[in-house]
């Protein structure tokens, strides 16, 4: 035993062992309890869940939302990706930067804006044409908002695979006599299919799992369109005890759709996966748009208008209006709403909580993620592959389902009695801890992934050289490995901090009376009668997220950022 300890190293054993234990408790625990509940659910739970027309409707809406958003993003994203990645579109970089903004702004911010623009009774667009033409409180409305938000995932994948594609592959087709369209559909598109497919399956899964947009676009509606995530929230919100079995059953349905649809897509595509995209060859020539330059810019401009300018402008205007019905007159604009929100007692508390939680989750996630990555890439511990897989699992599971697991696992205090006078009690319900842990777990895939790719790029001999110089394992990590991983870890920290700061899906299920966060407060204000206050918070979130990104890019010379 002593020798074995000497070989592994006590510190190393403790650190890596604790990392594994944390994963088992806070990922394996919630998801395991959920699994047990689902298996243990009696037939009456299932028949109750399936028997209700509302639930069947919700499942149908979830499928419609997922596939509708996918179709929308492909329709917009593929042409945009080609324009950015392969054409000679004028002012390409500016357009691209503008169109990428929806990628960093939480989709629910778009939903709030579009409620102001296109709600059936008083939406600005409906008023301006004097009718009730647009109804954002509908499944197409949800597809519209989510589609605009997720389009960057598609065009970024297409554009970057086109840019890295070996240009001679296209040139060979042109020399063989194929016209531009034929080259695009026959050569270019099939070759970027692997990248496109993984972005498409992400969009499908994220749409099925989305909560904020369908929730906001249901709560104000005369005829709300529930989807599975919002139904699960309803079930838990209405009666925490009796709602749980139903929530579990609906979660299984959500998992089947959210994981099943992308998997189905991958199976259809799987037979033709190949890699021809090399890292070396940079695109030589770009397709000339010729007479299509103007229409192409109009198309890109329309997306920027709908996805960025109109929603952000609307929110900014709303946040500045003293009287919502008063219009954009100068005497109606002031910073009164900002003063009211920021000097109230709710918003500062929520902002403080969100900052602490996001920073804490990001810091803890980076530390834990680094050790998980180390365990996976630098040791031969049995089960290391399983732990790495476990760490990536929460990101693939819908947030609603993950937080249901947290509720099931941690809503009662858990006591570990070691001896009569020595007991550990884990009491997480309604604390900041449960929110922070949920955020950390949900986004742990980023630090693990970043640290793993960093470690793979780092020759093990760099750390071994420190050991040979007389440094212990911990000292070698501090002096050599961690400093060399720093760029990856800084990026990972931001990748956790930014989405955690504005998180809503899990927060709304896990927050308590004393632990409001930005997302829950924003939803509260929007749903219960203070839209200007909600707009103020939305503007603040957008500014912080965009500013954080800009800062990260500036600090890292363009290497870090979303």
């Amino acid at each position, binding site marked *: 035993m002593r020798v074995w300890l000497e070989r592994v190293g006590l510190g190393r054993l403790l650190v890596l062992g604790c990392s594994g234990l944390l994963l088992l408790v806070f990922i394996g625990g919630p998801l395991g309890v959920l699994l047990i509940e689902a298996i243990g659910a009696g037939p009456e739970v299932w028949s109750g869940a399936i028997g209700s027309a509302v639930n069947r409707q919700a499942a149908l809406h979830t499928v419609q939302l997922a596939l509708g958003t996918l179709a929308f993003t492909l329709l917009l994203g593929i042409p945009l990706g080609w324009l950015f990645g392969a054409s000679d579109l004028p002012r390409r970089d500016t357009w691209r930067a503008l169109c990428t903004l929806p990628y960093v702004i939480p989709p629910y911010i778009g939903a709030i804006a579009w409620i102001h623009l296109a709600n059936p009774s008083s939406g600005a667009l409906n008023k301006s044409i004097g009718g009730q033409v647009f109804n954002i409180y509908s499944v197409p409305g949800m597809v519209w908002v989510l589609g605009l938000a997720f389009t960057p995932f598609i065009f970024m994948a297409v554009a970057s695979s086109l840019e890295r594609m070996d240009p001679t592959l296209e040139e060979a087709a042109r020399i063989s006599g194929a016209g531009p369209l034929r080259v695009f559909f026959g050569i270019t598109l099939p070759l970027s299919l692997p990248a496109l497919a993984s972005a498409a399956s992400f969009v499908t899964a994220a749409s099925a799992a989305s909560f904020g947009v369908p929730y906001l676009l249901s709560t104000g509606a005369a005829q709300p369109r529930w989807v599975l995530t919002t139904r699960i929230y309803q079930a838990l919100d209405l009666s925490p005890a009796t709602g749980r079995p139903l929530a579990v059953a609906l979660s299984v349905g959500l998992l089947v759709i959210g994981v099943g649809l992308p998997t189905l897509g991958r199976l259809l595509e799987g037979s033709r996966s190949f890699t021809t995209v090399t890292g070396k060859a940079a695109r030589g020539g770009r397709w000339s748009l010729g007479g299509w330059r103007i229409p192409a810019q109009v198309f890109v401009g329309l997306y920027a208008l709908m996805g960025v300018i109109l929603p952000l402008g609307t929110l900014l205007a709303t946040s500045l209006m003293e009287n919502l019905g008063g219009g954009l007159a100068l005497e109606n604009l002031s910073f009164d709403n900002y003063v009211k929100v920021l000097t109230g007692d709710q918003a500062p508390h929520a902002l403080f909580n969100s900052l602490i939680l996001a920073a804490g989750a990001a810091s803890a996630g980076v530390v834990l993620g680094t050790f998980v990555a180390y365990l996976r890439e630098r040791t031969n511990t049995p089960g290391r592959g399983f732990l790495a897989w476990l760490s990536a699992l929460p990101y693939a599971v819908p947030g609603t389902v993950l937080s249901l697991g947290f509720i099931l696992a941690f809503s009662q205090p858990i006591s570990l009695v070691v001896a009569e006078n020595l007991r550990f009690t884990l009491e997480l319900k309604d604390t900041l801890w449960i929110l922070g842990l949920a955020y950390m777990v949900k986004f742990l895939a980023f630090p693990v992934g970043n640290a793993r790719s960093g470690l793979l790029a780092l020759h093990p001999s760099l750390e071994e*050289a420190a050991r040979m110089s007389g440094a212990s394992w911990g000292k070698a990590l501090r002096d050599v490995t961690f400093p060399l991983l720093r760029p990856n870890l800084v990026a990972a920290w931001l990748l956790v901090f930014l989405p955690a700061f504005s998180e809503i899906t899990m927060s709304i299920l896990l927050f308590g009376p004393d632990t409001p966060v930005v997302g829950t407060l924003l939803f509260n204000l929007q749903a219960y009668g203070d839209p200007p206050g909600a707009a103020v918070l939305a503007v603040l979130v957008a500014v912080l997220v965009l500013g954080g990104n800009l800062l990260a890019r500036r600090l890292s010379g363009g290497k870090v950022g979303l």
Partner: protein
Amino acid sequence: MPVQVQLDAVHKRFGDVHVVRGLSLSIDQGEVLCLLGPSGCGKTTTLRMVAGLEVPTQGQVSIGGSLVSGPGLFVPPERRRLGMVFQSYAVWPHRNVLDNVAYPLILEGRADALDKARSALEQVQLGGLEERYPHQLSGGQQQRVALARALVAEPQVLLLDEPLSNLDAKLREELRDELRALVKRIGVTVIVVTHDQEEALSLSDRVAVMNAGVIAQCAAPQDLYHRPDSRFVAQFVGKLDALPALALGGGRVRVGDIELQAHPCQGAPESGPCELGVRPESMSFAASGLPGVVQAVSFLGSHVRYRVQGQDWQALVDAGSGHSLGDPVHLRPQAGIILGD
């Protein structure tokens, strides 16, 4: 000379792969020993077990007379007082040259760390480059930084893992001579791993040829080259062609109508039909001898290498110019090795 490093019946398994199979070896103080072998023979694993970077599955390792690895005992690498140069150099890219070299001394908490590091850099002729970062250095300079860092804390043993393999041929030769002069001047014990036999023969006092996880032969370079123990060593070290011959007993051997004294390997037949191993430089052209035809001619600068095809043999001959493709020639071996099974 007292024994500095001792390995006793060391085994290493990685899962099902048995990489080192009961290897025993002792290295004297101040000796330069080279582990030479084909890739996958376990030479790097052996070096890493001495370093403490791998834990032996079985067997004992001692350094400077004290056990560092064995049943019930394992001393971690940082407490073995060794210096090591890695194949990739492992010069830390985020520290400048001086900080790289001073690191082992700083860990010891020595006040004169920076001064000692400066003089170590002088020793490897890198004076003046203290403030540079690794990406500003050439491969050869990085190699010297790694060497200075490995030597700065005056280790008991210096371990070198393929130290010259990433350098171009000319620099490699230059650094090889410099390295040997340096370690001999300091008097440190050195273990080098290499797959380059020229490097092994020119650098070391003794060469341990490894094959499939064990040592095939450990001897001084000349002995290894001229008096190999086995067919494997004879063929692995240097060029060797096998000619059909007849052993006459007592190391006498006849090829064609030529009789000569040869070195018999272990397992070589005392008398009767055998194979005679001959190196290109111990073959010469003559008016009579083994008849053959020149099949290839390559001009190598200092000499010309011919490939000659005989009736049932083929051989390389190093000689001066004078023969061309297709010429009928006669060959005469000057020395040889009677190969075993």
